[in-house]
């Protein structure tokens, strides 16, 4: 239950940041908060009280957590890092042309 509550809180915090803030960098931060909330949540609810999914040589019969969500989230983290880097690059390029990263002050797209 605490996992669900904190997931919803973090996710809505990120969504609020994206909807309210005018600064593009802050919007990227909000997107990252949303992604991190989803990752934490999937990892947290896949925890069934077992051990990490790595076998020890001496101790073969241990009870593990589900390894599949962890593998999927590892994929997601890399994708999230790539998209963040590309978004920041586009913001740098926008700042070079308009000297402004405030979406209210950007006028038109005919730079």
């Amino acid at each position, binding site marked *: 239950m605490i996992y669900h509550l904190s997931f919803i809180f973090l996710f809505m915090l990120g969504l609020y940041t994206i909807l309210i803030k005018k600064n593009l960098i802050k919007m990227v931060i909000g997107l990252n908060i949303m992604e991190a909330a989803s990752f934490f949540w999937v990892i947290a609810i896949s925890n069934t009280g077992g051990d990490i999914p790595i076998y020890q040589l001496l101790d073969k019969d241990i009870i593990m957590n589900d390894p599949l969500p962890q593998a999927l989230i590892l994929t997601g983290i890399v994708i999230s890092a790539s998209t963040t880097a590309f978004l920041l690059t586009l913001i740098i390029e926008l700042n*070079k042309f308009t000297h402004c990263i405030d979406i209210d002050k950007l006028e038109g797209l005919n730079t």
Partner: protein
Amino acid sequence: MNATAERRINMKRIFIISILFFFAFLVLFYLNDLPEIVMGTIANRFVEKSVEETGSLNVVTAILYDYRAFDSLGESTVLFAAVSGIVLVLSRKMLPVSSHGLSILVKRNFGILTPFIALFSLYIITHGHLSPGGGFQGGVILGVISIIFSIVYGSAFDYERYSPQLKTTLETGGALLFIFIGIMGIVFEGVFLDNVNFLNDGTGTLISSGSILVINLGVGLKIGAGLAIIFYSMIQKTFGEGLE
């Protein structure tokens, strides 16, 4: 800003917050009905069979680089596309104007520390099938070395010692190593990216688990060089504009 516009913005903020609260309660309502999480049949099969089938003690690595290796290839392709896009957007025919780096104290300290950082990243990459870690995690640590060079010693040092050509070669080499292992799987086992059981020295040793180790190396080089390229493209622009 006059009072009317301010009140309008406040109204908008309250409106959005109330809508978000509504959605939060809706999601919470549905999450309450979530059935209890149990390990499915696929996960049980992975946990039971992965050691004898792949030779990798780390089940997550076995899934990433053996059962679902094609997904990892796609994931690397996403990072490759992001790096290509960033270099394309930020590319400029401009000699990098160097920063001067930090003080002599920091330079000497990082001169001692940097080899150990490289060693640690190699350890994380090559022990991906035995302990937590793997190609992606170790590659990120490898990418840090380029950032240390640029910030501590100045970007000209980074340009000389770890040139963009070398980074590009490493990244392409990592991707090609991954695809080469996949084609070896076709040749020896009949399926793309199947585990080729060469260099197998017994489960639990460093040289074991066949192609997982080699794929880890390729992915680590690729991620490290890719992050270094991203950082280099970004600071080349910033330093050039600051000092022009």
